[in-house]
């Protein structure tokens, strides 16, 4: 090679970024953290019951159940898709579990496994329909299955409630391990797991790649369809996990549980910085966002504010948190 005339000058590429304060501080997560601190301060200001360990601890149990689904939902949104059937999947898996236990007389352990399987299958169906019929978007597919899954739940349980679970089943929703709610431990574990998967593994990298440019990802040898199906299955599976916790908290189930969960979950992910335009988002931001919304609602609940005020506050928070950085950016450019 040396004997050839080089038609270009050799160049080197830097592999270390110089340290930059700007990069460290201009991050969405700091903003979220500030909001969270503000929420905690506000909470302690308005209610004497808010800022103490037992209260904050038990407060998490109030909102963390649905928050479990936020992780796969974030993945789905990063891939520029959306899944609005998760609430119905929660209901269906819960109903299947309860029916198998009460009517079919199966052991609870088997019913729980069936619940997880149901959720995963629901997710699988979503995923398969989405990749097989690309001309239909994820919105229409999951809109259809949203109605369908809940419909099946109704067909199974009709107007009945099913419950009477064994004593130990209540542990999921109400139990503590070393003084920490079991639900919180599961949430933390899932946050860690999803954080690693999304940010440190090839699978996560592929998810981001698909969100950025699905065609180029396919051309680069990523099995786009497979990744999509897996992520939708994960959403179904986590919906089933939520079903277990929710059912445990309610001690019984009905086909109409978990209605409108999808919107709450999407709001959490969006506040956490996951963009539905695809390709962006971090698990840390999502986790903070979950606690912001959760503690805000909890804190406002402790001073017994009407729930419609809460609707308005969460709506305004969502808009402000997304709009302020944009407005700031607009100012700077001018």
């Amino acid at each position, binding site marked *: 090679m040396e004997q050839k005339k080089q038609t270009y000058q050799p160049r080197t590429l830097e*592999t270390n970024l110089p340290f930059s304060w700007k990069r460290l501080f201009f991050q969405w997560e700091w903003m979220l953290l500030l909001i969270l601190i503000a929420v905690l301060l506000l909470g302690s200001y308005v209610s004497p019951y808010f800022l103490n360990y037992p209260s904050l601890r038990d407060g998490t149990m109030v909102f963390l159940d649905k928050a479990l689904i936020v992780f796969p939902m974030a993945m789905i949104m990063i891939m520029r898709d959306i899944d609005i059937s998760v609430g119905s999947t929660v209901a269906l898996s819960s109903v299947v579990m309860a029916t198998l236990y009460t009517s079919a007389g199966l052991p609870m352990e088997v019913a729980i496994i069936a619940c997880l399987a149901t959720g995963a299958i629901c997710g699988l169906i979503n995923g398969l329909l989405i990749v097989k019929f690309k001309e239909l978007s994820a919105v229409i597919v999951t809109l259809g299955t949203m109605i369908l899954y809940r419909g099946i739940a109704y067909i199974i349980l009709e107007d009945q409630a099913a419950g009477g679970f064994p004593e130990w089943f209540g542990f999921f929703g109400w139990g503590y391990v070393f003084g920490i709610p079991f639900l919180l431990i599961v949430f933390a574990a899932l946050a860690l797991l999803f954080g690693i998967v999304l940010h440190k593994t*090839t699978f996560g990298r592929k998810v981001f790649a698909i969100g950025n440019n699905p065609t180029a990802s396919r051309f680069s040898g990523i099995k786009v369809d497979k990744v999509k199906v897996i992520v939708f299955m994960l959403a179904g599976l986590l919906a089933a996990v939520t079903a277990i916790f929710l059912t445990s908290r309610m001690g019984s189930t009905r086909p109409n549980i978990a209605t409108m969960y999808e919107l709450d979950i999407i709001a959490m992910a969006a506040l956490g910085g996951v963009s539905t335009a695809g390709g962006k988002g971090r698990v840390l931001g999502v986790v903070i966002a979950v606690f912001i919304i959760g503690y805000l609602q909890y804190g406002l609940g402790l001073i017994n504010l009407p729930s419609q005020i809460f609707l308005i506050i969460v709506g305004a928070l969502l808009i402000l948190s997304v709009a302020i950085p944009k407005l700031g950016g607009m100012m700077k450019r001018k």
Partner: protein
Amino acid sequence: MTNEFVLEMKGISKAFPGVKALNDMQFQLKKGEIHALMGENGAGKSTFIKIITGVHQPTEGEMLLVGEKVSFQNPKQAQQHGIAAIYQHVTSYPDLSVTENIFMNHEIRHQVWKTLNWREMHKQARQLLRELGSSLDPKAQMNTLSVAQQQIVEIAKAISTKAKIIIMDEPTAALTARESEELYRITEKLRDEGTSIIFISHRFEDMYRLASRVTVLRDSNYIGTWDVEDISNEKLIVAMVGREINQIFPDKKTSAGETVLEVKNLCKLGEFEDISFSIKSGEILGMTGLVGAGRTEVCQAIFGITAFDKGEILLSGRSIRNKNPQAAMNNGIGYLAEDRLDQGLLVDWSIEKNITLANLSDLSSFTWIHRDKEKRQAKEFGEKVHIKATSIFDSVNSLSGGNQQKVAVAKLLTKELKVILLDEPTKGVDIGAKAAIYEIVQQLAEAGYAVLFVSSEMPEILGMSDRILVLKEGRIAADFVNRGITQEMILEAAMGEEQVQEKSG
């Protein structure tokens, strides 16, 4: 005050956050002239154009239109002043019809009702297209057209505004020689009717054929303006690249080994038929033909992106069937996509992550990505193809076209491959970068790769290939050994009525 210049740009500068894209640019356009604008990738040509058309506003400088000072806040104002542009990246509306694409935002309306006059618009669209020598249906939806056809629609759109100044940013990048010829004819006709034309191209043949004057930019700076007759090829290259390039095409050292890839009777309904060829290791097989001849389709079928109906692909004598790109890559076949922005790269990502995307499995254990390994590999391959950037963390969309293409090539090299399919690897790439890419391709061949080199540009096909395949309407029209072959022979095969079957022996 009469004015010799229809358009005059004085001291134009433009800064994007972090980039000075244009610095003290001077430009003068006469009435009825074709003025070429040349420079390396990223020199600032497209930015300059966008300033003229009001898409961007200059940070400094002034703009005179027929002697009068103007400043455009948006493209509509430029349009109203008789400036039309065909942008580098085709800016069509894929979901709308040809007519609508042509007349968008200057629709024809009924005199009385002020409603859109579809009948008239279709009629005029058909007329415009016919003048351009095309019989496209004005009602056809844009995304059913090929790139060349879309280009024609873009030209029709520019003409339909009855513009006095038409700017063409690399209109020939997606065209073959034959279609370029058609475009030259149209351009000259427009010039003769008194329109002034700014023409950007990386092809020297375009400039020599069309332009009377040429302005050169380098690294955002204005270098100079010359009459085309007065400047030699070498001087022009020095002006553009800032140094001499003695040899564009590397020396060929054919040392073909065993047959690596063999394609037998490949057929796909409506796309291609009866495609058979083979490539030996160390060999570069050129593939050319008119746009739409189906070259991309053949490559993508081999690479497993689309399925084919009939036929067989043999790799080192073993029959393979690639269900998806990953299978193809595992079998040792790589593909450099024609459309790098849409199919090749993740433009929002850093160079580093783009390079390693296809090779993550080798950089990870139990799917955990080793960042150090990844960075090392990105650096290694990035430097191997000489990407012009400061760090591997630069985002790809901050790079010029040529450097983007190099990133795509670097990505391809990370995998251990036997065959690489290069689909228009130099499309829209400047002369310096082209030479670099040619050299990389030659090195690959020497390293034992079997290379399929798809291109519409005759000089590079002739300059690079050991053998040349010519495709016509999805069939192989000719298969030449590249010895004493001329452009005319290839063109004849690509367009001729009877099939030239000159089997190489």
